[in-house]
């Protein structure tokens, strides 16, 4: 076991080179780091928000709103489909989680069911809506979204939201934001540095759902407000002129926009948002405007009417502008939001932390100083306790720290405050591995074995304990990483890397050093016996 081994020497030297190379950037000033030749690693430790300051937002995707919207659309689809086939119906609406409709003519109930099934049915996997349709007594048809379809939809909404948030934040130019999914319906946004959390929140939190809807003038608004709104229409508040009655169906939606930018109106000089539709949107918009000249349509953003112009002529080109009491900044923000796309569902802010960078610096200093003090005391103690063998253990520990920081820098794992404590504990457990080995060696020596035999047996026997102990630590770390959140995860990752590096250094490095010492000195007794 102590015989010279080439792979052991090579692996330790490789670890040393790796550790130094990847730890070094942390000690160099940024200017030196940037002038390094391209093959040099230049990543530094990725400090958590608690260490470097910044904003932390935890948002949850409102999947309930998503469900409401899906149900509303379904009701409108049913209405359109049945009307197109001249099937009379009544009682179309939501009952609990379901949508039901009653077909007036009993003879056509079956036909209606089959029609709806062929148009709306189909499994999610095959691109259908995942609707379960069933015939109920009294010529009723019940439609229900399968649990699977709702979950798939919600999951997709979270993914989309993450993508859209990323686009929006990138447009703001925030430095290296981290956007992660957490659990089923939560999103964590971390923006380091001196960012304004309120601006961040306003740009992330807005759904930015843009629709163009026709104004319904079949009933006066005052009458509709008293509860006599025609089915298929809805009352929405407007920015400038009180509530208005609109058709529920959107003619064109924000997804059909290809361009949006802030500009100024040619005549009034007011800030406006210029936009352009894609082919489908342009066609739809062209058709609708051609058929409704003289009527009004409304531009609706997040359930609020921004403006409701009268259609003067068919708008065929596919481009237009939104005006509505903007300042240059709000028009610009809206353009950014429209370009990035609408969130599929509203987001609610669950948690918001702002950590001043100054406090972060204090925290880093306190952590670094206290860790250095702990390390110095620990080195002193093992040197006193084990003499020369203590020096070997201490050298292994230094390499352990280099490897740990090197790997953390390379993988860009986040070092948090608890992570620092995790590192301290990792060091203690690494020392424990050496203590176990040395105590075993002492056992063997006391049994009357020669130094060489004592060393070899000691290492071999201690390895069993070290293996079991570190596997349990690794299990704990992996579980923490999988199920924990935030601080716990950072801590677990540090611990896991620490388990790997400390087994390697505590066993392999000291083995190499002691083997080399034994061959050069040929000692008759061991210093620790």
């Amino acid at each position, binding site marked *: 076991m102590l015989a010279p081994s080439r792979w052991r020497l090579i692996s330790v030297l490789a670890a040393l080179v790796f550790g130094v190379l990847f730890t070094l950037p942390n000690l160099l000033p940024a200017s030196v780091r940037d002038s390094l030749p391209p093959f040099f690693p230049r990543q530094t430790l990725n400090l958590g928000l608690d260490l470097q300051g910044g904003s932390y937002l935890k948002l949850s995707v409102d999947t309930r709103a998503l469900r409401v919207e899906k149900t509303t659309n379904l009701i409108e689809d049913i209405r359109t489909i049945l009307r197109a086939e001249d099937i009379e119906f009544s009682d179309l609406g939501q009952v609990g989680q379901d949508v039901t409709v009653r077909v007036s003519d009993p003879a056509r109930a079956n036909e209606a069911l089959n029609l709806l099934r062929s148009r709306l049915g189909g499994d999610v996997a095959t691109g259908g809506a995942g609707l379960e349709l069933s015939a109920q007594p009294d010529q009723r048809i019940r439609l229900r979204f399968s649990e699977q379809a709702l979950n798939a939809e919600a999951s997709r909404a979270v993914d989309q939201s993450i993508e859209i948030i990323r686009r929006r934040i990138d447009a703001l130019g925030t430095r290296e934001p981290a956007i992660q999914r957490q659990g089923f319906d939560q999103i964590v946004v971390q923006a380091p540095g001196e960012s304004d959390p309120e601006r961040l929140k306003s740009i992330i939190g807005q759904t930015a759902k843009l629709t163009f809807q026709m104004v319904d003038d079949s009933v006066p608004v005052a009458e509709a407000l008293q509860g006599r709104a025609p089915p298929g229409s809805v009352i929405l508040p407007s920015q400038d002129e009180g509530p208005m009655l609109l058709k529920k169906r959107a003619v064109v939606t924000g997804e059909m926009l290809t361009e949006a930018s802030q500009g100024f109106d040619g005549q009034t000089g007011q800030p406006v948002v210029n936009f352009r539709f894609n082919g489908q949107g342009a066609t739809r918009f062209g058709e609708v405007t051609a058929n409704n000249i003289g009527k009004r349509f409304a531009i609706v953003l997040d359930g609020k009417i921004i403006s409701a112009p009268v259609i003067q002529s068919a708008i065929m080109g596919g481009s237009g502008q939104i005006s509505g009491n903007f300042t240059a900044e709000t028009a610009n923000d809206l353009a950014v939001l429209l370009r990035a796309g609408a969130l599929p569902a509203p987001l609610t*802010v669950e948690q918001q932390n702002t950590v001043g960078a100054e406090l972060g610096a204090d925290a880093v200093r306190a952590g670094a100083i206290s860790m250095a003090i702990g390390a110095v005391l620990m080195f002193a103690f093992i040197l006193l306790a084990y003499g020369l063998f203590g020096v070997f253990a201490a050298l292994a520990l230094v390499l352990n720290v280099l490897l740990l920081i090197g790997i953390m820098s390379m993988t860009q794992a986040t070092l948090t405050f608890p992570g620092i404590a995790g590192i301290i504990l990792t060091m203690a457990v690494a020392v424990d591995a050496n203590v176990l080995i040395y105590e075993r060696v*002492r056992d063997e020596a006391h049994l009357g074995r020669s130094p060489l035999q004592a060393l070899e047996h000691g290492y071999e026997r201690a390895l069993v304990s070290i293996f079991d*102990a570190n596997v349990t630590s690794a299990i704990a770390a992996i579980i923490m990483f999988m199920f924990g959140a935030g601080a716990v995860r950072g801590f677990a990752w540090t611990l896991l890397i620490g388990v790997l590096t400390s087994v390697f250094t505590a066993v392999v490095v000291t083995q190499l050093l002691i083997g080399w010492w034994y061959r050069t000195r040929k000692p008759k007794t061991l210093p620790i016996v």
Partner: protein
Amino acid sequence: MRWPLITNLPRVFNLDFVRYAPVAAVISSILIAISFGSLAIRGLNFGIDFVGGALIEVETAKPIDVGGLRRVLTEAGGEDAQVQGLGQGNGAILRFRVPENADLNASTQQVKDALQKAFPGIEIRRAETVGGKVSGELARSGAIALAIAMLLMLFYIWFRFQLQFGLGAVAAILHDVILTMGILSLTQLEVSMTSIAALLTVIGYSMNEKVITFDRLRENLRKYKTTPLRDIINRSENERLSRNLITGTTAIIALSGALFFGGPVLFPLVFTMVFGVIVGTYSSIYVALPIILLWGVRRDDDEPAPLRSANLPQR
């Protein structure tokens, strides 16, 4: 004294560990009763990570007026307002909750504005808000992680040793967790997400101790097939004592720097860890082993550990 110091320690001690097990059982029971009592009466001082609410850290040029801060806080709508002075007396941490139906973020902004109006030049260094929904989730995810980690460790020990070893370990770790929560309750240290990390470390360290303990026990069980279990436990613990002294001291020394110089943010975490090192060492000897002693072990287990032949490099 000779140098290195280790040479002063006899290789094998000759203490009757098992003799004190009944005494230890009484002590452990009393400590557990105190812990439960304190948890029932005083409870834990949950931070906003768990109960929801807002935390604002401020700094002023002049010495801070704690009473004034509390008054402004309450007037601006903060419930349960707590003000804690910091450092040289120029800083303070404000904690408060808002009424159930109020918007937490808006209320926090309101408090910030009120503070800036009442104390011109006040610097807000940190502001955190946690909604009630998140806090429930944090507690749940912490508890789930805890339960799963314990269960997996039980299975691992069962697989590597025997079932009663695993159950002894889990009982000992529960003992450690209860005492740790008891000390958190007695000292009223703030319990945050970080405390969960500390608690999991206590468990990890404790489990490490159990495995090392069992490993020596298993080895001696194979070596001395007819010796009574009680004597084997005593022998194993005497053989392990020097390792326990060195490792325990090293761990506490390593943490002592952060304990005394880590500042108020690091203190609760490190304090919990130091406590865990002490309790974890104790419970290996006086909770896990007595359970195994009372239960008994299988003595026909003479297969070599699979690791020996398979994974170790041959000499």
